[in-house]
């Protein structure tokens, strides 16, 4: 093990160096740029065997990843915001072709107006594309998630999108415990594709025209693969704990055991929420928090279990779903709890375009929950937090 001081982007590049993928196709976009630059240096210095393809767009980045993955290679890339939006068409192709591509997303707001800072609109927009989505809280998790993602992707036969917060994680230098190269190598093993395009002796047709007579069966297979991925994520998390000492599951709880009020968040805000919970506990308010790590597949049973005793829940969405009844996580959590819990569930849309969210904001959320729990009345189910 090595203790390193790295920002999130450098940690992604470092993990990619240890993984030593066959092909990386990349295109720069803030706040992901540092990762792709750093990886290019590893290539230039011969520290990896990777064929690095510096493509002319993100659409081509994902297209090249698809070609390379279908060819039988271990393939990675990373992007953010407009880059992910530009790939949208190809995200579905990658997932439906069942290609185990790993792509880190450094979450950033979408235009317009153009903004380079964090929110989750980019990856949330891709939540139905068939990619497994894992959200990391800090640099250490960012590093750990990438390595696990390779194994998850190749076991599930689905692409994986580990995400973390742009700038807040991508540009923050933190202490990282990096595994030894050998450990990473043994953990991910050797990738063997079932039907590589490069096997010219056994020609295969990838991406045929599929009509109403078969398309739906193929979608059902994808649906089942996504369902099966839930256990794979858990198993890989346990296996990773053995080599790293850090445990990973679909979610993690903070003081939820005896809590009546719960705050749920993804990514870096989960840390802020824990802090706010601790401060409110000192004031005698019975709060807890839940950090959701896995968003796709959605671990609804784990969520039900974790929240079974709470009376009021605040779901923190770092993106809007315009016109919907709340943000994407809110809708899913409410639906997961339907008929299994009579807790009130409210939604806060916060932190858009990098708007800072502090413990004070979350303490206010917990106070709101406390009012709901004592009065039994909800003033507003969906509201913006920290907006003028």
């Amino acid at each position, binding site marked *: 093990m090595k203790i390193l001081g790295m920002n999130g982007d450098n940690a992604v590049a470092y993990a990619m160096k240890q993984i030593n993928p066959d*092909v990386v196709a990349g295109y720069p976009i803030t706040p992901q740029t540092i990762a792709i630059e750093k990886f290019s240096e590893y290539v230039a210095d011969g520290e990896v*065997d990777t064929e690095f*393809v510096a493509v002319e767009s993100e659409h*081509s980045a994902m297209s090249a990843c698809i*070609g390379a*993955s*279908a060819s039988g290679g271990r393939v990675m890339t990373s992007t953010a915001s407009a880059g992910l939006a530009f790939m949208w068409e190809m995200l579905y192709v990658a997932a439906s072709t069942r290609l185990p591509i790993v792509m880190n997303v450094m979450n950033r707001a979408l235009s317009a107006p153009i903004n380079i800072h964090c929110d989750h609109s980019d990856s949330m927009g891709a939540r139905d594309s068939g990619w497994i989505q894992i959200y990391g809280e800090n640099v250490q998790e960012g590093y750990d998630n990438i390595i696990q993602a390779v194994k998850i992707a190749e076991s599930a036969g689905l692409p994986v999108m580990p995400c973390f917060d742009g700038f807040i994680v991508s540009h923050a230098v933190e202490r990282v415990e990096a595994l030894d190269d050998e450990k990473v190598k043994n953990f991910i093993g050797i990738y063997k594709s079932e039907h590589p395009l490069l096997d010219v002796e056994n*020609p295969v*047709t990838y991406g045929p025209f599929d009509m109403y007579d078969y398309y739906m069966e193929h979608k059902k297979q994808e649906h089942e693969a996504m369902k099966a991925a839930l256990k794979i994520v858990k198993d890989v998390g346990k296996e990773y704990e053995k080599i790293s000492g850090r445990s990973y599951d679909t979610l993690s709880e903070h003081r939820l055991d005896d809590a009546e009020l719960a705050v749920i968040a993804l990514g870096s805000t989960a840390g802020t929420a824990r802090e706010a919970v601790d401060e409110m506990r000192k004031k005698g308010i019975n709060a807890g928090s839940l950090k959701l790590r896995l968003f796709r597949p959605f671990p609804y049973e784990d969520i039900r279990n974790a929240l079974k005793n709470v009376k009021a829940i605040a779901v923190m969405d770092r993106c809007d779903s315009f016109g919907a009844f709340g943000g994407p996580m809110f809708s899913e959590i409410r639906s997961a709890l339907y008929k299994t819990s009579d807790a009130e569930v409210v939604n806060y849309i916060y932190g858009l375009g990098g708007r800072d969210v502090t413990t004070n904001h979350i303490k206010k959320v917990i106070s709101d929950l406390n009012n709901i729990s004592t009065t039994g009345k909800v003033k507003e189910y969906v509201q913006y937090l920290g907006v003028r």
Partner: protein
Amino acid sequence: MVSLKELSKKEEKLASGHRLCAGCAEPIIVRQILSATDEPVIASNATGCLEVATTIYPYTSWKIPWIHSAFENAASTIAGVEACYQVLKRKGKINREIKFVAFAGDGGTYDIGIQALSGAAERGHDFLYVCFNNEAYMNTGIQRSSATPMGASTTTSPAGSVIPGKKEFPKDLTEIMAAHKIPYVAQGSPGFYNDLIAKAGKAFSIKGPKFMNVIAPCPRGWRHPTDKTIEISKKAVETCFWPLYEVENNEYRLTGISKLIAEGKKEKLPIVEYLKMQGRFKHLFTEKYKHIIPEIQSRIDSDWGILKKKCGY
């Protein structure tokens, strides 16, 4: 020169029984191109008539490894395949020679796919890109593309009572690709199969990005009888509407009939000979729009003059 006898002995890489229209030039061109190498070939294919009609699940007409991922990215998809090949070869996991080819229509090349093609060419991937130029979006029902000739009626540039079909001349994609200064760029026609196969053979033997633009008559879109495909593809060359030439290491060279025309050994036919065979130009033969034909002729003459000069005539 390839002999027909030799060609007939080669195993077909695209099986018969596909669902392209009778008389479609696309499968003819695929066969001609793929017959030009004996090495294993892997193809990427953009969305379009060829892709749709050769791979209706659970069937496939392809006897070679083949991948379709979307409409605008035949070049970046094959770039990924080729990149993977390079690394696996470097690692000793593959040790045979493999050729890479991207097939796409004019829509997938001149329009929506030009960025991916330009990028892959600039990066120097080792692949041959073949554009089937049937001068419109045929798969979606004959809409205009930037390859559609001036005066042609398509479903989005219909000849109406005030507008005589497409108003603009097409862009010259072959020249755009030559401007990338890649090792090999050529124009071909399936009517002159010897020329086309020789060019494909040359392209396959060269390392790096290669581009071939092939005129591909479409009986549906061009409105001609299905047995006129080859004749029309020859007329395109004989009228200098679609000259046969190649640019090898930046050196321009006319080939086949086009060379003979430039040298005065063969007559250059007037463009009417080409236009009159196709329903898409029918309105140009009416009183109202007949003035368009001389405009087309003068553009062809001027383009031909420029090309001849580049080829040293």
